[in-house]
């Protein structure tokens, strides 16, 4: 086995295991912490594909900023077993069925694509994921969508301020 395959195996196991733990954990704070581990494992995958910028930004934005806000909220409302809402048994079953249906659709969709044989992931070559080539693409080929999405972010920010100001 090549060293990259070993690394991929470890990262894939870590990603799936921690993602499962997010769902299984009883304590919401533990769930958030497992989600952070998941993000780190996914960043590891990006690095294997030589998409360094994506890997770092994933950590800065998701693990570093958004998850901190999640933790804030959960720590301050301080959920514990007594105050946690008791879920209906039927609701649980409905959730299980819905999740199973989604899994079925996903598996069916990926089976039809048949990527596994034709295209293998190109590991650790090419510089498409480096900041230079990414920036060039974004500011030449995709300039208009890029600017429009930045306006979208701005409007979201203004909206948040407006909601926050209203007492």
């Amino acid at each position, binding site marked *: 086995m*090549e060293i990259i395959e070993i690394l991929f195996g470890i990262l894939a196991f870590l990603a799936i295991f921690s993602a499962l733990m997010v769902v299984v954990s009883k304590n919401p704070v533990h769930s958030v912490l497992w989600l952070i581990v998941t993000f780190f494992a996914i960043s590891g995958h990006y690095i294997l594909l030589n998409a360094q*910028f994506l890997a*770092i930004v994933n950590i800065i934005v998701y693990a570093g900023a958004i998850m*901190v806000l999640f933790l804030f909220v959960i*720590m301050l409302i301080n959920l514990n077993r007594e105050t946690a809402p008791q879920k209906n048994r039927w609701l649980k079953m409905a959730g299980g069925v819905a999740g199973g249906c989604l899994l079925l659709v996903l598996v069916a969709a990926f089976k039809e694509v048949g990527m596994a044989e034709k295209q293998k992931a190109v590991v650790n070559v090419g510089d498409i994921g480096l900041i230079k080539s990414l920036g060039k693409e974004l500011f030449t080929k995709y300039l208009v969508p890029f600017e429009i999405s930045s306006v979208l972010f701005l409007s979201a920010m203004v909206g948040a301020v407006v909601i926050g100001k209203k007492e």
Partner: protein
Amino acid sequence: MIDWWFLLEKTILIAGIIGLSFFIAMYTTYAERKVAAWLQDRRGPNRAGPFGIFQPLADGGKLFFKEEIIPLASNRFLFVLGPALAMITALITSSVIPWAAPFTTKGGTQIPMQVADVNMGILLVFSFVSVGVYGIMIGGWASNNKFSLMAAVRGASQMVSYELPMGMSLIAVLMMTGSLQMSTIVSYQAEHGWNIWYQPLGFLIFFICALAECNRTPFDLPEAENELNFGYHQEYSSMKLGFYLFAEYINMFISSAIMATLFFGGYDIPFVKEELWGLSPFWLTVISFGVFMAKISFFLFVFLWIRWTIPRFRYDQLMNLGWKKLIPLALINMVITAAVILYFKK
């Protein structure tokens, strides 16, 4: 398959840098007491060894042998994880800093004095600075103490708010050097002059934010003892407390190193051309390392100087400074830099 020499070289470098970080952090605690004593007209520690030079060892020994108390109502695993995370994230950022000029062997191969010269250099530092919040938050929450939780939330919101102007002030520097790679930033400055001459405002913003990120006075609100008893590490004792306190000093050391690298030319020796000296590559590496350490020591001194001079901010003042003053200033700095670069390129 695995290049064992490469592995050995990097292992030695990593061990060296971690050892160095611990050593410097140890003696920063000593320097802190001495500088405080000097500013307050006292003598400071002077019992252990000549000039009290073994004081940090005595402190460390004391922390090691103290009784370890884990509160019953705390979350045991997370309680231990908190200080460990604080320490790991403090140490990991040192991996992308170029510590000295690359050492050229007789065979002509260059050995960089840097653990990883990655393409994303400075962004990697940022990502681990932003992850560093978890050490404080997890520790504060897991101690199951209201004061600890309050302090942790304060600390986290402070660090998240000051990351923004820090990143923005950095963008101006990156526009000038045109690279995120630390070694390129240093060699650019060696060629074109230090960044501080072109980006004084950017440096000022960066420095203020570095103070806030390290939770140093005047931004030490997470540890405000008269409001929060002792802050987020209130329930900690023994070496776990030591880890938190020590991580703060390592953060100071690393942020001084990053400031020296980004704005003060890194290991570049000012006013001279080293190539004309005709020294052996070994001595060049050693001297450049010494110069870099001198720059870092200066910044560390400024950190201590500020701590014993300026009183603490109030919480609303802290937030106003971050969001309403530093971010607009950093944005203006960014726009002006971009305009000047565009003007000179045409």
